[in-house]
């Protein structure tokens, strides 16, 4: 077989990006097609339904659900405040003595009234939600009541794992080589609101200092599992992240442990030192793969915005690969052979392998499953 499909992360100096910015519910789009937007601009907003409070009105009033109808003072859709009387009975002998009055516990709206259970559902006021552009670019499509599509030309790096939400800021290289381990002395007030770049590793106490200095995001080759646990206060069981609020976002380009950042990634970040970037730590490995992203917008003309159809990375002779499991974890090599036969590796597992050559000319045999294509 001359080629095979393989997983891979994109690291490229120039790509046409297309980002859908969709509201969680239908709402109002605030921009029109062709508008030039900045990452921080709000492009759409909506109102999320408020919390629902079930409230057993019949019980409160001391009547059966079927009797409730006689005493209720509200109907579905009514606006309510804590002063609104929901129901009241006539009191003893209908004379108003020991009369029970039930007021609304919240401000909001009446959602439902049930004669079967005596329960009313009250909804709190709606909660406004804004969607930002996230990347500098042009609105190329408006999806009425739902959101927009923003396109731009960017330098683009996919990380492997991250934590924390979307943010924007200026890139600041703190590492001088891809295998640098970031030390605390390099972080000072000049890092405020910046996206800082470490090399192979950033330890917990340095992340802590970065948070204190108002750093917006950290890009690192590797991170220690226990440091993440200390930061979050819990262990990540299943990789669905991005919702954490720890004061900054972290984008890890290689994996867990001390792992030298891929040279191509490092060089690209270095080239754009001082430029504005949009980043996020959203990661979801299962059911719709989402990887963290580093997006550095470039100048472009509108006619350049022709996106290329997604394809699956292909392994073939000459493909540049990154080894993603021991032995040689983190190393870069070039594919020199794709033998068809199943081959036994050290663990005695029979697998499809490939032959790869390192920069120094040494060659190794590796399971195809343990490499990823470096896409460009």
């Amino acid at each position, binding site marked *: 077989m001359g080629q095979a499909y393989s997983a891979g992360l994109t690291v490229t100096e120039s790509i046409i990006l297309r980002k859908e910015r969709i509201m969680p519910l239908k709402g109002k789009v605030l921009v029109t097609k062709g508008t030039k937007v900045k990452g921080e601009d709000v492009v759409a907003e909506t109102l999320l339904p408020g919390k629902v409070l079930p409230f057993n009105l019949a019980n409160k009033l001391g009547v059966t659900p079927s009797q409730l109808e006689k005493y209720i003072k509200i109907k579905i859709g009514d606006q309510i405040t804590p002063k609104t009387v929901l129901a009241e009975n006539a009191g003893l002998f209908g004379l108003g003595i020991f009369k029970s009055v039930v007021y609304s516990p919240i401000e909001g709206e009446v959602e439902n009234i049930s004669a*079967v259970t005596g329960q009313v559902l009250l909804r709190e006021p709606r909660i406004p939600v804004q969607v930002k552009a996230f990347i500098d670019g042009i609105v190329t499509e408006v999806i009425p009541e739902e959101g927009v599509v923003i396109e731009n030309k960017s330098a683009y790096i996919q990380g*492997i*794992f991250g934590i924390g939400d979307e943010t924007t800021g200026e890139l600041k290289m703190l590492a001088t080589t891809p295998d640098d381990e970031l030390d605390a002395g390099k972080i000072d007030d000049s890092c405020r609101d910046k996206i800082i770049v470490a090399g192979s590793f950033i330890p917990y106490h340095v992340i802590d200092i970065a948070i204190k200095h108002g750093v917006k995001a950290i890009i690192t080759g590797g991170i220690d599992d226990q440091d993440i646990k200390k930061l979050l206060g819990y262990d990540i069981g299943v990789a669905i992240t991005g919702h954490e609020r720890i004061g900054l976002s972290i984008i890890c380009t290689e994996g867990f442990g001390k792992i030298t950042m891929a040279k191509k990634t490092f060089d690209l970040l270095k080239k754009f030192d001082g430029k504005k970037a949009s980043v996020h730590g959203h990661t979801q490995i299962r059911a719709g793969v989402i990887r963290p992203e580093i997006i550095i917008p470039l100048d472009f003309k509108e006619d350049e915005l022709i996106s290329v159809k*997604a394809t699956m990375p292909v392994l073939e002779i000459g493909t540049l690969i990154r080894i993603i499991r*021991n*032995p040689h974890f983190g190393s870069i090599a070039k594919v020199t052979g794709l033998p068809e036969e199943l081959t036994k590796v*050290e663990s005695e597992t029979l697998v499809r392998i490939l032959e790869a050559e390192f920069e120094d000319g040494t060659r190794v045999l590796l399971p195809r499953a343990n490499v990823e294509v470096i896409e460009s």
Partner: protein
Amino acid sequence: MQYDEKRLTRIVATDCGSTTTKAILIEYVDGEYRQTIRGEAPTTVEAPLNDVTKGVINATQEMEELARLKYNNPKLKFMENGEFIIPRNGDIGIDAYVSTSSAGGGLQMMVTGVVAAMTGESAERAALGAGAIVMDLISSNDKRMNHEKIERIRQLRPDMILMAGGEDGGTIKHVVEMAELVSGADPKPRLGSAYKLPVIFAGNKEAIGDIKNTLGDKVNLIIAENLRPKLEAENLGPARDKIHDIFMEHVMQQAPGYNKLMAWTQGPDHQQVPIMPTPAAVGNIMQTIAKNDKIEVVGVDIGGATTDVFSVFTEEYIFNRTVSANLGMSYSISNVLASSGLKNIMRWVPFDIDESELRNMIKNKMIRPTTIPSLLEELVLEQAIAKEALRLAFEQHKTFASGLKGMQRQRDISEAFSQSTSGASIVNLMTLDLLVGSGGVLSHAPRRYQTVMMLIDAFLPEGITRLAVDSIFMMPHLGVLSEISVKAATEVFRKDCMLYLGTCVAPVGKGKYGKPALYAKLQLPDGSVFEEDIPFGEVRLIPCAAGEVAKATLKTSGGLILDATKAKELTVDLHGGIVGIVLDTRGRRPFALPTENSERIKYLKKWMRELKAYPEDILV
């Protein structure tokens, strides 16, 4: 619809898993159905391709290439222009294509009931039996406040909801109250908001009118027969059927590429064959084994994201399935560590390793789920993790697989002081006949000896238990194949899928390491005799090939027993297998490893050496 061997001569079956799409070729050769070739490729239901059929094409292409090599026939072809050629015409095409699927997270459901341990549990059983992952069970008595329940329903985005509650003629109020909570939450389906969320009501039939009034406008309401019409009876079939229909009609339609895949799955006359959720197909097979051989069976399917356990127990062949949604060997591997704790994993590892190195290795497997252990040390570690994932999943299963709760039981005087109550687990390892393993880490272990070791250490079978493994992970394929040809599915299952590993003999009870535990005399078919007084804390492996039987005389010492009648002496036939007969005197209830580290490592190495689990150089 069933087809005979004249119409079905070459079949492609795929299982679109969350990580990998596995394709197998089944052919009718020399008067019998055999599984001949397999291929696999990454599943492509997700970005960037967002089309499940691409993975199917890639896996089939690999199979095509291997078939051409095997038969030395370059003309062989199953697909053209990215579609199957049906029916077969000589070298070209196939007669049928069938598929199961758990890609994109499988079928995710939420269930509701009135009392969690009664109608709630029945609803959960129905959903699990249909192959779903149950995201949450919400009931009137589950201790959460009503507004918390609404919040929860809103957050979850299930593929569908199953509502149960009230025996026929029983409570209406509580059932309607639950419907009001669902209505208030106004839940949205997981895949796409273009359709209304399907909600199946399978509760008190007298509440149907009120349920329609409460939910009718907001959701796609489907009514099924009450799944717990009386306290002492479950009727899960109709609800399960409805779940399958909706899975096909609504859920699958929304997943990327499934419309195309559903059109592809067809028999020789182009009749459509429904795609089945993977666990439902495996459940089909497990029940067939139990009923055909009249035995009690436990089966396990350990995947990348989830671990399913199936069991068939008692004379009524009561079937139970559980899915441990966050126990698996890739996506969920980190959660195995979080659930079991590092110490429990390390107790199975016969060497010392730096803790942070191990933790980072596990996390790296989580974020790059398709990698495989190339180094021996990493294989040992993954198999130690697998033992814990299996153990935890089985613990959950034992708790769930119980008799119906809430029933009144008549007791005689002998039971008056026993602790058993209604709803006790029906899983009895002492009466279990067969333990079947499936899923990558068990089916693809480099040595079958390792599979035996993992099954024994994780499940701790008691008394006499046969062990088997799904040879290359094809139970799902055969489960769905039986829909169009029971004959093909059964033949392939017996000849190519089910691989008997051997039998485990494990006396139950406590003992002291080194003290006498089991006298065993085995007369083997080749005329040789194995005879030994085996001390406590040992493992012996006696080769005895598949299809062969050893005549055994077994006598225990101390308080150890051999079967459910508490026999201390037995003369039995022990079935062989590709690994052989394992005599395990490490004790049960409790099973305990030596606490002192060097002692534990010494014994682990001894057992692993005896079971031929790993090459000698890692055990010195």
